[in-house]
């Protein structure tokens, strides 16, 4: 058994944050049916990106703008436990797929909504993408420094938090449904994700000293908590969290004399002479490859790690040994390496059920499953209400 094995989800999402909610749930066993418009999820443009957030799902194409198509969607929804969407407030209502409409068909539906700016307030209907929220919420300036060049985070900060919060909400609603039989409406948003990610500095009180740590070019927070470069040009992170780490690091670097040096004898003194210490350590670290330093430091109990990149991560031995990756055969892209399931459940582990679907790959399959006959399906296709993809023969 997988945690959400008996949960079917009507997935009306596109792009990242919403699609990611369903990806999280699919990873834990939910049967996610992506309902894609005829012109496609715009995120299909980015093949790697699309595969990452849509794996494990099936896909049907229903043209909801066409007369009669709505009923096909309703019939599908009536077999679902949950519906997830992330459109601008108002759009689902236009499609007659909003909570009030869907509740008529399926009174105990769990309806998860994830608009960019939330459903209330003056900006609710504005279009928004993750970096728009990165800019507006303080994440870009917090990293780049006040008045400096803002930093656009490569990790799509809020688009990555949204799926976790949305799937958390979905799980909460499922838990309540298991206990009471009741469905309900739940909402998250990129806005909420931006607040949650900044929960440690989305704070204001009298006398607060705001720590503005961001700088355009920052390698860490102090000489004993930052990155250094090795002779091979690679970098490592070293973090002397405790006094014993500092002493051990000096030993590893052959800088025992620093331990007794009054400029660096205490944490306070080191803070005061941070720049000097950084310069000394920078020179010392430059004498050996970064990876070797990290190992030497770890052996002596000093928290340290190499700074990897995605290329090296894809080949990382620890990842291989511990099953971080899965390998799949994809109909269009051939052999694909991608990350496997993140959480490890001892009794009910999740599973990547299938690679990301082609647009309309499962239209016939799903419509048959929910009770339409072949004749009806052919009629829908002739009227262009639904589209079935031509699936290439697997090599």
């Amino acid at each position: 058994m997988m945690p959400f094995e008996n949960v079917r989800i009507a997935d009306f999402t596109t792009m990242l944050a919403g699609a990611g909610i369903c990806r999280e749930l699919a990873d834990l066993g939910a049967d996610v049916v992506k309902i894609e418009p005829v012109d496609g999820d715009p995120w299909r443009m980015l093949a790697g990106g699309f595969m990452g957030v849509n794996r494990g799902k099936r896909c049907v194409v229903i043209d909801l703008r066409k007369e009669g198509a709505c009923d096909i969607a309703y019939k599908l929804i009536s077999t679902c436990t949950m519906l997830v969407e992330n459109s601008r407030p108002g759009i689902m209502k236009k499609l007659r797929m909003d909570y009030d409409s869907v509740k008529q068909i399926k009174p105990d539906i769990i309806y998860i909504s994830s608009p960019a700016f939330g459903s209330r307030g003056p900006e609710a209907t504005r279009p928004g993408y993750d970096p728009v929220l990165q800019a507006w919420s303080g994440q870009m300036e917090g990293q780049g420094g006040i008045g400096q060049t803002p930093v656009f985070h490569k990790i799509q900060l809020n688009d990555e938090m949204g799926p976790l919060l949305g799937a958390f909400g979905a799980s909460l609603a499922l838990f309540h449904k298991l206990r009471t039989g009741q469905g309900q409406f739940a909402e998250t948003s990129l806005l909420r994700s931006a607040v949650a990610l900044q929960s440690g500095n989305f704070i204001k009180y009298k006398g607060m000293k705001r720590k503005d740590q961001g700088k355009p070019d920052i390698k860490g927070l102090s000489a004993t908590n930052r990155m250094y470069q090795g002779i091979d040009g690679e970098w490592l992170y070293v973090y002397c969290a405790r006094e014993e780490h500092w002493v051990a690091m000096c030993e590893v670097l052959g800088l025992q004399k620093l331990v007794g040096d009054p400029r660096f004898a205490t944490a306070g003194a080191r803070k005061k002479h941070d720049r000097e210490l950084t310069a000394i350590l920078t020179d010392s670290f430059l004498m050996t490859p970064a990876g070797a330093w990290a190992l030497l430091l770890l052996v002596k109990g000093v928290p340290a790690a190499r700074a990897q990149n995605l290329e090296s991560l894809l080949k990382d031995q620890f990842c291989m040994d511990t099953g971080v990756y899965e390998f799949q055969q994809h109909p269009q892209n051939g052999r694909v390496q991608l990350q496997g399931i993140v959480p490890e459940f001892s009794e009910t582990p999740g599973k990547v059920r299938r690679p990301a679907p082609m647009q309309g790959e499962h239209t016939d399959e799903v419509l048959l499953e929910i009770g339409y006959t072949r004749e009806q399906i052919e009629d829908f296709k002739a009227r262009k209400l639904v589209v079935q993809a031509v699936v290439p023969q697997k090599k």
Partner: protein
Amino acid sequence: MGGALSGIKILDFGQYIAGPFAAQLLAEQGADVIKVERPGGDPYRHVDGFMVWNRSKKAITLDLKKPEGLKIALDLAKQSDVIIENFKPGMMDKLGAGYEAVKTINPRIVYCSISGFGPRGSYSNIAGYDQLVSALGSVYTEQGFATHPLYLVLPLASLYSAAAAALDITAGLCVREQTGKGQKIDISMFRVILGTFRQFLVDFEGMFRAPWGPTGPMPLYRPYQCKDGKWLFTGLGNPKFFTLFALALGHDEWLTDPLFEGAPFLIFPPRNAQVMAMIKDIYLTKTRDEWIKMLRDNEIPVAPVQAVAEFMEEPQVIANDLVKTLKQPGVGMVKEMGIPIELMLTPGKIKGPAPLPGQHTKEILRTLGYRAAQIKELKKAGVVR
């Protein structure tokens, strides 16, 4: 109606960010959370975020290294539905309160361990500090320059792991509701942060990888500086917005110009630098507020680059109930995060500010049947505080 998790009891051995934040998210959806602190206290007590990540909990200070302290912890574990801990792998086992020990007295327990790299493999003995997870997880290199990595201020691995733990614990509770059985859930912060790269961490023949740098490689999806020195972000996230943008700027010819082929996302080097230079000059002709008004009037996604303190004042943030004012002991009135997930039928609730160390020790021990004299003894022996 109460929260979705009403009646669920959680024992939170968490410290720093990931463990406590997960427990707080669950507490405000209805669970009763007891924070178990060691005599030295949570090392993050001096950090502002502590107030937020520990709201809505009760606190007991317990020395798990003393047999009587462990007994109290196990008595609490026996009555709990969920345990959360984020010590180094193996630490809870060594103390005698690991999953195997708790399972024998409470097979229904959902036991969540959050650690830097999970319990297996060569990295598992590396301390789970956010910085080390981020370094090994490629975060600083991928964000960085061609010549060197860039440190990130937000402790992303910890924050995402907290939300992941809240989600997975709730999933574990859903399973238990159907099977009656608990289980162990391991959350590796390393795996979680890799998950945030999921769209890039895919390898197949033909996968395109663009170097990123601080402002990204995409000329139609990046921050730009305006005439008054202020910055904005233009997010032309699909071809429709690019069309609106070109028309609004009076550059209809862009729509057929081969320079812009593949807009908005697929303009690769060297064309991206050419487009960037063109647009950079255009933005320098008006102030930020002029641009924002103009772009918003044309329905184009745009936002000023501003500070978190300004964001907290935004009517939109307030309208979505995301700023709450709490009286935090010793600090006074504090404006802070609301509840990031909103359920209509079972709304969440902030139950109170972060507890002081050992604030509820006596009360919690009483529920276990300890009498006043015994509690005094335990305090004297340094078992509780």
